[in-house]
């Protein structure tokens, strides 16, 4: 039995390594002196590509577009996702199950389906593809992230808190402001961050709704076909890993902490 566990433990650690090695490799390559091939180990290390990447206007334009798109999409998703979660939590209406199903559909169906469907519909409606068409697409698949986070929080919180607040003389607004909102606020932040990460990173749906503009992932994708720009791509990859990892870890940590708190109660 002991030996069998050891074998399983080794397999488990191998899988964990498999999941994480690419991050280290991609970060190492930002420093390689080799600009045309992917030689490992790198023939030398240098900081010069960071300067080269810094001065690329197209990279900054893509970064700025992605940030703006993700910010607006996250806001829309926060509003819609919270409303849906509150509706599903607080009453048992007909078709409640269908709401969850409908919200998860944009990420459960292949990305290409969502992308081309939006493109067909927007074309049909005579819309020009611009900033707002990207936002519409992103908000649609981000709603479910906020919804799941907030609904999970609602389900773990004590419903008698609201009743107690009303019994003690608070009106509906005060109850929302001082009881409900503080209770869900960290779920909102965590859900918002994950939605932001999802939008910031999305590429399949975006290629169909973007027109001529390039978000950062689209920019990276287009760089991959140009060998000359490889060092710049490597540096951008380095930064994306650094900048996205911390907020994601923070959001996951928040969810985890709350889960443990409610388990101990």
């Amino acid at each position, binding site marked *: 039995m002991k030996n069998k566990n050891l074998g399983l433990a080794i397999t488990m650690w191998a899988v964990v390594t498999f999941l994480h090695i690419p991050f280290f490799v991609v970060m190492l390559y930002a420093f390689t002196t080799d600009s045309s091939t992917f030689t*490992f180990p790198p023939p030398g290390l240098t900081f010069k590509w960071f300067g080269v990447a810094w001065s690329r206007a197209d990279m900054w334009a893509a970064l700025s577009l992605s940030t703006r798109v993700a910010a607006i999409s996250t806001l829309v998703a926060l509003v819609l996702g919270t409303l849906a979660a509150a509706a599903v939590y*607080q009453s048992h209406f007909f078709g409640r199950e269908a709401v969850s199903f409908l919200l998860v559909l944009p990420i459960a169906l292949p990305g290409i389906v969502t992308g*081309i469907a939006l493109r067909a519909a927007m074309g049909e409606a005579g819309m020009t593809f611009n900033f707002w068409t990207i936002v519409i697409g992103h908000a649609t698949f981000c709603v479910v992230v906020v919804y799941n986070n907030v609904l999970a929080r609602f389900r773990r919180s004590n419903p008698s808190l609201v009743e107690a607040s009303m019994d003690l003389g608070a009106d509906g607004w005060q109850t929302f402001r001082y009881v409900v909102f503080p209770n869900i606020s960290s779920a909102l932040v965590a859900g918002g961050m994950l939605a932001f990460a999802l939008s910031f990173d999305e590429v399949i749906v975006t290629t169909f709704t973007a027109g001529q503009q390039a978000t950062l992932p689209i920019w*990276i994708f287009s760089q991959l076909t140009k060998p000359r720009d490889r060092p710049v791509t490597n540096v951008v990859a380095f930064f994306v890993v650094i900048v*996205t990892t911390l907020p994601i870890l923070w959001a*996951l940590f928040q969810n*985890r902490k709350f889960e443990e708190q409610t388990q101990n109660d």
Partner: protein
Amino acid sequence: MIRRFSTYLYNHPGVLLALLLGPPLGWMLVIYLGSLAALLFQSFYYLDGFTGQVVREFSFLTYRDLFSAAHMTIVLKTVVMALSVTIGSVLIAFPLAYYSVRYAGKRLKVLLYFAVLLPLWSSYIIRVYAWKLMLAKEGIVSWFFAQLGLSGVLEWLLSMPIVGGASLSVSNFGLFLVFTYIWLPYMILPIQASLERIPHSLLDASGDLGARPLQTFRRIVLPLALPGVVAGSIFTFSLTLGDYIIPSIIGDSTPFIGMAVYSYQGTAGNLPLAAAFTVLPMVMMVFYLLGARKAGAFDAL
């Protein structure tokens, strides 16, 4: 004002429900389901071969084109890849999920929670790109095999028909590896969830009744973990079916469904055919979801 309104809402839950549900439901119905409907309509239009214009009349011409041998090869290739990736992910995900549920202590469990979720949420395109670096002929994987003195094994693998190629990054095996890597967390999480739910007393009872550990695993654990496996496979299968980024970065660049859709709607201007191409994975997924529901997979999601 806002106070009276909020108290009114508290006393009239029906109005509150309508106000809460209206915006998100309206958005999803109009924008998302509306788009899916537009897509379905589009697939019944057809492209006039002479003018290059889309004719907006109901016809089955586009579907006749879709079911031609060349297009069916693309569909078959994609489906075979999606199935292989699904099987591969189950085999890799199961040991990790099983270990974390059965043997891991509290701290290791937390570590594994982050170890699985971090790759899931971090940049998809960067992770694909990382594999392009790693699988290149001069990259880290070849280097690793050479260090172990196993270059021959790698060459043997690459010399095989269908799965092989000039280097891992342009072979179907490399493509399979990257797909499996990218969707792996989607398989680990539901398997973990279904294993968590197996009561410990069941395993004890099985042992007490004289089952050997392997028998317990096969007769008790596996059947109860099946809903989780099916739930995970919804994601691995669906995401592989609809991806076009990974096969255009890795692999021998023969088209997958996603790439065909992208090129037909783009340069070829044949939106109806692109739409018809996506209707196929959609129909497949609907049947898959119905089957998954029967297997109880939705409870494991």
